[in-house]
Protein backbone atom coordinates (compact mmCIF):
# COMPACT_ATOMS: atom_id res chain seq x y z
CA UNK A 1 0.00 0.00 0.00
CA UNK A 2 1.16 3.49 -0.78
CA UNK A 3 0.74 6.47 1.54
CA UNK A 4 0.89 9.95 0.09
CA UNK A 5 1.47 12.62 2.71
CA UNK A 6 1.14 16.36 2.28
CA UNK A 7 2.68 18.59 4.93
CA UNK A 8 1.61 22.24 4.86
CA UNK A 9 2.21 25.22 7.08
CA UNK A 10 -0.68 26.11 9.35
CA UNK A 11 -2.76 29.16 8.54
CA UNK A 12 -1.24 32.23 10.11
CA UNK A 13 2.31 30.86 9.98
CA UNK A 14 4.41 33.11 7.75
CA UNK A 15 5.78 31.25 4.73
CA UNK A 16 8.68 33.32 3.35
CA UNK A 17 9.46 30.74 0.64
CA UNK A 18 5.84 30.77 -0.53
CA UNK A 19 6.03 34.58 -0.61
CA UNK A 20 9.18 34.42 -2.76
CA UNK A 21 7.42 32.06 -5.20
CA UNK A 22 4.44 34.42 -5.34
CA UNK A 23 6.71 37.40 -6.11
CA UNK A 24 8.68 35.46 -8.74
CA UNK A 25 5.47 34.43 -10.51
CA UNK A 26 4.27 38.00 -10.50
CA UNK A 27 7.64 39.24 -11.85
CA UNK A 28 7.40 36.66 -14.64
CA UNK A 29 4.10 38.15 -15.71
CA UNK A 30 1.77 35.51 -14.27
CA UNK A 31 -1.12 37.55 -12.93
CA UNK A 32 -3.91 36.52 -10.62
CA UNK A 33 -1.90 34.53 -8.06
CA UNK A 34 -3.15 35.87 -4.74
CA UNK A 35 -0.99 33.66 -2.57
CA UNK A 36 1.54 30.80 -2.79
CA UNK A 37 2.19 28.43 0.12
CA UNK A 38 5.01 25.91 -0.01
CA UNK A 39 4.72 22.48 1.55
CA UNK A 40 6.22 18.99 1.40
CA UNK A 41 5.07 15.82 -0.29
CA UNK A 42 6.24 12.45 1.00
CA UNK A 43 5.44 8.98 -0.38
CA UNK A 44 5.75 5.84 1.68
CA UNK A 45 5.57 2.25 0.46
CA UNK A 46 3.95 0.24 3.22
CA UNK A 47 4.03 -3.50 3.83
CA UNK A 48 0.75 -3.24 5.72
CA UNK A 49 -2.33 -4.37 3.77
CA UNK A 50 -5.00 -3.46 6.33
CA UNK A 51 -6.19 0.07 5.57
CA UNK A 52 -7.24 0.97 9.11
CA UNK A 53 -3.96 -0.22 10.59
CA UNK A 54 -1.97 1.56 7.87
CA UNK A 55 -3.83 4.79 8.50
CA UNK A 56 -3.21 4.63 12.25
CA UNK A 57 0.45 3.84 11.74
CA UNK A 58 1.08 6.61 9.18
CA UNK A 59 -0.78 9.08 11.37
CA UNK A 60 1.60 8.25 14.21
CA UNK A 61 4.60 8.64 11.86
CA UNK A 62 3.32 12.09 10.89
CA UNK A 63 2.81 13.19 14.47
CA UNK A 64 6.16 11.86 15.67
CA UNK A 65 8.45 12.81 12.79
CA UNK A 66 7.11 13.80 9.40
CA UNK A 67 5.26 16.95 10.53
CA UNK A 68 6.04 19.42 13.29
CA UNK A 69 2.55 20.09 14.57
CA UNK A 70 3.64 23.35 16.20
CA UNK A 71 3.76 24.89 12.73
CA UNK A 72 2.47 22.29 10.25
CA UNK A 73 -0.65 20.37 9.29
CA UNK A 74 -0.60 17.07 7.42
CA UNK A 75 -2.98 15.04 5.32
CA UNK A 76 -2.72 11.37 4.40
CA UNK A 77 -4.02 9.54 1.32
CA UNK A 78 -3.78 5.76 1.09
CA UNK A 79 -3.85 3.83 -2.12
Amino acid sequence: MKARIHVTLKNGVLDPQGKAIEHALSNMGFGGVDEARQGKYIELDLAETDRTKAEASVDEMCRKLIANTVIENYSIELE
Partner: protein
Amino acid sequence: MKSAVIVFPGSNCDRDMAVALEKITGTKPLMVWHQEYDFDTVDFIALPGGFSYGDYLRCGAMSARSHIMKEIVKRANAGVPTFGVCNGFQILTETGVLPGALMRNAGLHFVCKDVEMTVENTGTMFTSGYKAGETITIPVAHHDGNYFADDETLDRLEGEGHVAFKYTSDINGAQRRIAGVVNAKGNVLGMMPHPERMIEPALGGSDGRVLFESVMNRLG
Protein backbone atom coordinates in the same frame (compact mmCIF):
# COMPACT_ATOMS: atom_id res chain seq x y z
CA MET B 1 32.19 21.55 36.39
CA LYS B 2 32.00 18.46 34.23
CA SER B 3 30.33 19.00 30.89
CA ALA B 4 29.44 17.10 27.73
CA VAL B 5 29.17 18.30 24.15
CA ILE B 6 26.89 16.19 21.97
CA VAL B 7 28.15 15.61 18.42
CA PHE B 8 25.84 14.83 15.51
CA PRO B 9 26.84 14.19 11.89
CA GLY B 10 26.89 17.75 10.55
CA SER B 11 27.57 19.51 13.85
CA ASN B 12 30.17 22.19 13.15
CA CYS B 13 30.33 24.27 16.33
CA ASP B 14 31.06 21.34 18.62
CA ARG B 15 34.76 22.21 18.84
CA ASP B 16 34.04 25.92 19.45
CA MET B 17 31.79 24.86 22.30
CA ALA B 18 34.42 22.45 23.65
CA VAL B 19 37.13 25.14 23.56
CA ALA B 20 34.88 27.65 25.33
CA LEU B 21 33.92 25.13 28.02
CA GLU B 22 37.49 24.06 28.62
CA LYS B 23 38.79 27.64 28.80
CA ILE B 24 36.06 28.78 31.16
CA THR B 25 35.53 25.74 33.38
CA GLY B 26 39.11 24.45 33.28
CA THR B 27 37.90 20.95 32.44
CA LYS B 28 37.85 19.31 29.02
CA PRO B 29 34.29 18.36 28.15
CA LEU B 30 33.24 14.87 27.19
CA MET B 31 32.50 14.63 23.46
CA VAL B 32 29.50 12.33 23.01
CA TRP B 33 28.60 10.85 19.61
CA HIS B 34 24.89 10.78 18.71
CA GLN B 35 24.75 6.99 18.44
CA GLU B 36 25.62 6.53 22.11
CA TYR B 37 22.79 5.45 24.37
CA ASP B 38 24.37 6.67 27.57
CA PHE B 39 27.32 8.66 28.89
CA ASP B 40 28.93 9.59 32.21
CA THR B 41 27.05 11.77 34.64
CA VAL B 42 27.86 15.42 33.89
CA ASP B 43 26.84 18.77 35.38
CA PHE B 44 26.15 20.45 32.07
CA ILE B 45 25.08 19.27 28.61
CA ALA B 46 25.70 21.36 25.49
CA LEU B 47 24.04 20.82 22.12
CA PRO B 48 26.19 22.69 19.60
CA GLY B 49 25.40 24.53 16.40
CA GLY B 50 25.73 23.15 12.91
CA PHE B 51 23.63 21.48 10.27
CA SER B 52 23.02 18.06 11.76
CA TYR B 53 21.79 15.57 9.16
CA GLY B 54 22.03 18.33 6.56
CA ASP B 55 18.88 19.92 8.00
CA TYR B 56 16.92 17.14 6.24
CA LEU B 57 13.13 17.28 6.68
CA ARG B 58 13.37 20.18 9.17
CA CYS B 59 16.33 21.64 11.06
CA GLY B 60 17.02 19.41 14.05
CA ALA B 61 14.24 16.95 13.19
CA MET B 62 16.50 13.94 12.63
CA SER B 63 18.81 14.64 15.57
CA ALA B 64 15.84 15.07 17.88
CA ARG B 65 14.97 11.41 17.22
CA SER B 66 18.52 10.06 17.66
CA HIS B 67 19.47 7.56 20.40
CA ILE B 68 21.34 10.08 22.49
CA MET B 69 18.47 12.56 22.58
CA LYS B 70 16.27 10.11 24.49
CA GLU B 71 18.89 10.13 27.23
CA ILE B 72 19.30 13.92 27.07
CA VAL B 73 15.57 14.58 27.28
CA LYS B 74 15.47 12.29 30.32
CA ARG B 75 18.35 14.14 32.00
CA ALA B 76 17.03 17.60 31.05
CA ASN B 77 13.63 16.75 32.48
CA ALA B 78 15.36 15.51 35.64
CA GLY B 79 16.98 18.94 36.03
CA VAL B 80 20.46 18.67 34.45
CA PRO B 81 21.45 22.09 33.01
CA THR B 82 21.12 21.73 29.24
CA PHE B 83 22.11 24.33 26.71
CA GLY B 84 21.28 24.33 22.98
CA VAL B 85 22.88 26.84 20.63
CA CYS B 86 21.58 27.42 17.10
CA ASN B 87 21.07 23.89 15.72
CA GLY B 88 21.04 22.77 19.37
CA PHE B 89 18.11 25.13 20.00
CA GLN B 90 16.33 23.71 16.94
CA ILE B 91 16.88 20.18 18.25
CA LEU B 92 15.49 21.10 21.68
CA THR B 93 12.31 22.54 20.16
CA GLU B 94 11.95 19.47 17.92
CA THR B 95 12.06 17.20 20.98
CA GLY B 96 9.46 19.38 22.70
CA VAL B 97 11.77 20.13 25.65
CA LEU B 98 11.46 23.80 24.65
CA PRO B 99 8.28 25.32 23.21
CA GLY B 100 7.92 26.74 19.69
CA ALA B 101 9.76 26.09 16.44
CA LEU B 102 12.54 27.70 14.39
CA MET B 103 11.53 28.51 10.84
CA ARG B 104 13.31 29.83 7.73
CA ASN B 105 14.43 33.45 8.25
CA ALA B 106 11.69 35.80 7.09
CA GLY B 107 14.11 37.54 4.69
CA LEU B 108 15.18 34.12 3.30
CA HIS B 109 18.86 35.09 3.65
CA PHE B 110 21.41 33.35 5.81
CA VAL B 111 22.21 35.88 8.55
CA CYS B 112 25.83 35.88 9.76
CA LYS B 113 26.85 38.88 11.88
CA ASP B 114 27.24 40.20 15.39
CA VAL B 115 23.85 41.18 16.79
CA GLU B 116 22.74 43.08 19.85
CA MET B 117 20.26 41.54 22.19
CA THR B 118 18.82 42.41 25.56
CA VAL B 119 18.88 40.15 28.58
CA GLU B 120 15.18 39.77 29.41
CA ASN B 121 15.46 37.68 32.55
CA THR B 122 18.49 37.60 34.85
CA GLY B 123 16.81 35.13 37.19
CA THR B 124 17.91 32.02 35.28
CA MET B 125 21.04 29.97 35.97
CA PHE B 126 22.31 30.97 32.51
CA THR B 127 21.81 34.73 32.82
CA SER B 128 22.40 35.61 36.47
CA GLY B 129 25.77 37.23 35.66
CA TYR B 130 24.18 39.83 33.38
CA LYS B 131 22.55 43.06 34.51
CA ALA B 132 18.77 43.29 34.06
CA GLY B 133 17.94 44.81 30.67
CA GLU B 134 21.61 44.81 29.66
CA THR B 135 22.37 44.91 25.94
CA ILE B 136 25.00 42.40 24.86
CA THR B 137 26.62 41.58 21.52
CA ILE B 138 26.79 37.97 20.34
CA PRO B 139 27.25 36.59 16.80
CA VAL B 140 24.52 34.76 14.91
CA ALA B 141 24.96 32.48 11.90
CA HIS B 142 21.75 30.85 10.77
CA HIS B 143 19.24 30.36 8.00
CA ASP B 144 16.43 29.11 10.22
CA GLY B 145 16.26 31.25 13.32
CA ASN B 146 12.79 32.69 12.90
CA TYR B 147 11.23 31.75 16.24
CA PHE B 148 7.58 30.84 16.03
CA ALA B 149 4.99 29.92 18.64
CA ASP B 150 1.28 30.70 18.84
CA ASP B 151 0.19 33.90 20.63
CA GLU B 152 -0.99 32.05 23.70
CA THR B 153 2.42 30.37 24.11
CA LEU B 154 4.26 33.66 23.48
CA ASP B 155 2.15 35.46 26.10
CA ARG B 156 2.87 32.68 28.58
CA LEU B 157 6.62 32.70 27.82
CA GLU B 158 6.82 36.46 28.31
CA GLY B 159 4.50 36.48 31.31
CA GLU B 160 6.42 33.77 33.14
CA GLY B 161 9.88 35.13 32.33
CA HIS B 162 10.85 32.29 30.03
CA VAL B 163 12.20 34.60 27.34
CA ALA B 164 15.91 34.88 28.15
CA PHE B 165 17.07 37.10 25.27
CA LYS B 166 15.52 39.34 22.64
CA TYR B 167 17.19 40.89 19.58
CA THR B 168 17.19 44.69 19.74
CA SER B 169 16.10 44.78 16.07
CA ASP B 170 14.34 42.34 13.76
CA ILE B 171 17.05 40.19 12.15
CA ASN B 172 15.13 37.06 11.11
CA GLY B 173 11.40 37.58 11.60
CA ALA B 174 11.33 35.90 15.04
CA GLN B 175 8.07 36.46 16.87
CA ARG B 176 8.50 39.28 19.40
CA ARG B 177 12.23 39.33 18.43
CA ILE B 178 12.84 36.28 20.66
CA ALA B 179 16.46 35.05 20.53
CA GLY B 180 16.45 32.52 23.39
CA VAL B 181 14.00 30.79 25.72
CA VAL B 182 14.23 28.69 28.89
CA ASN B 183 11.94 25.85 29.94
CA ALA B 184 9.50 26.17 32.85
CA LYS B 185 11.97 24.62 35.30
CA GLY B 186 14.70 27.03 34.15
CA ASN B 187 17.38 24.36 33.59
CA VAL B 188 17.18 24.27 29.78
CA LEU B 189 18.15 27.22 27.58
CA GLY B 190 17.96 27.35 23.81
CA MET B 191 19.20 30.33 21.80
CA MET B 192 20.11 31.12 18.19
CA PRO B 193 23.13 33.40 18.88
CA HIS B 194 26.51 31.81 19.66
CA PRO B 195 27.89 32.89 23.06
CA GLU B 196 30.70 30.31 22.72
CA ARG B 197 32.12 32.49 19.93
CA MET B 198 32.34 35.58 22.15
CA ILE B 199 34.32 34.48 25.19
CA GLU B 200 37.45 36.65 25.03
CA PRO B 201 38.60 39.96 23.50
CA ALA B 202 40.56 38.10 20.80
CA LEU B 203 37.21 36.90 19.44
CA GLY B 204 35.71 40.39 19.45
CA GLY B 205 34.25 40.49 22.93
CA SER B 206 33.49 38.60 26.11
CA ASP B 207 29.71 38.98 26.40
CA GLY B 208 29.21 35.25 25.86
CA ARG B 209 31.59 34.27 28.62
CA VAL B 210 29.21 35.62 31.27
CA LEU B 211 26.63 32.99 30.33
CA PHE B 212 29.01 30.09 31.02
CA GLU B 213 30.29 31.76 34.20
CA SER B 214 26.71 32.19 35.42
CA VAL B 215 26.14 28.44 35.12
CA MET B 216 29.46 27.73 36.82
CA ASN B 217 28.62 30.02 39.74
CA ARG B 218 25.25 28.36 40.16
CA LEU B 219 26.71 24.87 40.14
CA GLY B 220 29.48 25.92 42.53
